[in-house]
């Protein structure tokens, strides 16, 4: 009697332990994923397919994208799209972790600095079954890695000089002709604005934290940041010249001191010189004109970067804002392609997202949304249309490891601004560090 009681108790104990363990397991398993992954996948025969679509962005983008997904599901019964979104900073951590865990989303939003890393490691595959006939060939080719189309550009941006005509006027300085102005004139103009506009207002925000400006300068000189074969294509002299411009601007008062430049760099569009009405010029991607204009309350203009007619050729180019790619291991390649096709080519989609994923790469779609654009976006569209004939070519996809250039650029430019490195030393360090990043 007593024996059986103990045994029963023991059995109960074991069962309870197992139950607790199972509970703990379930708990940890739940917290492990985003909670967006249902287990009742397609199920085979009934034709109900589930695909996951990953993107980064702001709340606005999440809302419009959800509307777009609803529209897609309505038009394509039998396909369910699971949204998987986060902000820019968390996006790449999350995507890399999901990939490591064998849980890659089916449709992945990509960016040029990561495209090669993901393509060469076989995470994203060749795009098939998507109609790309409406996208200009020179833009479509920016999604090719090793001759294979692995990402389709959603839209394009240009790296441009944003200017505040009101501050120019306050300082008594005329707006430059952006097709002919040189880098020296840029330094000169910025210095004059700082003098003319009074205390706490500067000519320009430092441009050296972003490698895109260096790429434009390199291209003007017939070089390029990266060659098509993935090696560095910029000379030491050009890099040194690029950093020297910042020093010249500090020397003539055209831009703030080093500490303030670092702070403005960290402050985003809203806290930038232009955004806080504390400066007349700054280089930005064209799609940020809206955010900058909203923050400043002024009507801002887009200008081409200086030096477009100074050297061998023009350096400005169209950069794909982002790409749509499809996981190489997706179980539903057809449905995924269908979604990408819809995102790129459906006019209703374009009317919902307007220029949020860049000025649409699909020309027919772009035409269709022009009348619906807000004033700032209208300006971007006009600027891009005027720029198009003067663009020689667009850069190739940056090589593996190119995402590290962001940190390298910030580090070396800060050394230059604080005068802890001469432009010459900075150029050496830049070539060495970037070379190591893309060689590895």
């Amino acid at each position, binding site marked *: 009697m007593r024996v059986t009681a103990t045994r029963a108790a023991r059995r109960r104990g074991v069962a309870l332990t197992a139950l607790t363990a199972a509970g*703990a397991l379930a708990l*940890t398993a739940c917290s492990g994923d985003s909670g967006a992954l249902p287990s009742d996948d397609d199920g085979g025969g009934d034709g109900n397919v589930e695909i996951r679509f990953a993107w980064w962005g702001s709340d606005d983008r999440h809302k419009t994208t959800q509307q777009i997904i609803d529209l897609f599901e309505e038009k394509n019964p039998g396909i369910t799209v699971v949204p998987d979104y986060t902000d820019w900073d968390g996006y790449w951590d999350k995507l890399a972790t999901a990939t*490591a865990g064998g849980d890659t989303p089916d449709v992945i939003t990509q960016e040029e600095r990561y495209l090669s890393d993901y393509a060469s490691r076989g995470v994203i595959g060749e795009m098939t079954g998507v109609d790309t006939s409406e996208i200009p060939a020179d833009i479509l080719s920016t999604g090719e890695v090793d001759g294979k189309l692995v990402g389709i550009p959603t839209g394009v941006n240009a790296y441009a000089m944003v200017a505040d005509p009101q501050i120019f006027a306050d300082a008594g300085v005329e707006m430059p002709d952006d097709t002919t102005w040189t880098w020296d004139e840029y330094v000169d103009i910025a210095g004059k604005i700082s003098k003319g506009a009074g205390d706490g207002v500067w000519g320009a925000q430092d441009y050296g934290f972003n490698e895109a400006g260096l790429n434009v300068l390199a291209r003007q000189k017939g070089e390029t940041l990266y060659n098509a074969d993935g090696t560095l294509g910029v000379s030491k002299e050009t890099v040194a010249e690029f950093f020297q411009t910042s020093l010249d601007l500090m020397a003539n008062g055209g831009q703030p001191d080093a500490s303030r430049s670092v*702070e403005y760099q960290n402050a985003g569009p809203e806290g930038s010189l232009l955004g806080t009405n504390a400066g007349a010029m700054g280089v930005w991607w064209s799609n940020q004109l809206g955010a900058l204009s909203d923050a400043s309350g002024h009507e801002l203009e887009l200008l081409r970067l200086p030096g477009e007619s100074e050297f061998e050729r023009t350096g400005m180019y169209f950069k794909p804002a982002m790409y749509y790619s499809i996981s190489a291991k997706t179980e539903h390649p057809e449905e995924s392609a269908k979604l990408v096709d819809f995102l790129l080519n459906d006019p209703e989609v374009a009317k919902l997202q307007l220029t949020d994923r860049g000025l649409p790469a699909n020309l027919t779609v772009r035409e269709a949304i022009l009348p619906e654009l807000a004033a700032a976006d209208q300006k971007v569209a006009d600027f891009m249309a005027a720029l198009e004939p003067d663009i020689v070519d667009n850069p190739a996809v940056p090589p593996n490891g190119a995402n590290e250039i962001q940190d390298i650029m910030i580090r070396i430019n800060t050394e230059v601004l604080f005068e802890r490195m001469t432009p010459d030393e900075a150029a050496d360090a830049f070539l060495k560090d970037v070379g190591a990043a893309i060689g590895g």
Partner: protein
Amino acid sequence: MAVIQEVARTRGAARERRKGDGKAAALFLAPWFVGLVLVTAFPLVASLYLSFTDYSLLEAPGWIGLENYTAMFSDPRFFQALKVTFTYVLVSVPLQLAAALALAMVLDKGLRGLAFYRSVYYLPSLLGGSVAIAILWRQVFGADGLVNQVLGFFGIEGVGWVSHPDYALGTLMILNVWTFGAPMIIFLAGLRQIPAMYYEAASIDGAGRWRRFRSITVPLLTPIIFFNLVLQLIGAFQSFTQAFIVSGGTGGPVDSTLFYTLYLYEKGFSSYQMGYASAMAWFLLLVVAGMTAVNFLASKFWVFYDD
């Protein structure tokens, strides 16, 4: 004879009961144990394995032996990260403990509204590691921030405290010192444990305030000081959030706030060198374990246990 049997029986019963207790204990420990295995032990072992591979996160890992460890010792940024972290730990932890002890002694005087003050001073400990406070500090210590406006009032021209490479780390140290609340609470509890009669006796013998502090408070408080020291050292080695936010994730300006953990994160998630990052994690573990061991060994010479 009967007594012996009685004793044996009681022992048997006790053993029986202990066995039952063991089962209950196992039951209650199970959730913790499962958590430990899944969330701590398994990743720990996995990262040890990964530290010997070229794991990129995107592809399957390949064995490369000790290559990550040898690469570490020819990486100048690795040494910069070590330098920054050690400077931070060795300067800010003693300062933080000194501040905590000083405040605890003041509060121990039995002020009115003690609970209120205790909570107020404890608050920074809760907030100090948070993203919001790091952002606030970025503003307050900016070139045009609150601190410089106050300094400007006295005719002093300040610098960009978090954006200048010579000052950024110092500013983060102050932020760490400011979060003295947790060790302060522990010191406060320790001070309460010291019997008042020691002080009374010392006063009668003519000991002054400093003498009483040095000869009674400090020796009797050494176990608490030791405990706080170990905890804060380990915590400081793992600092991440403040530097990450203040420098925009880069460890800048020019690597002046490149904390070890920040560099580790950068290697793993933006350079896709998770193998290297794992090796760095294991090296950090060894360093922290070594520091703690030295701490424990040294404690024999200065920590005084009253019992």
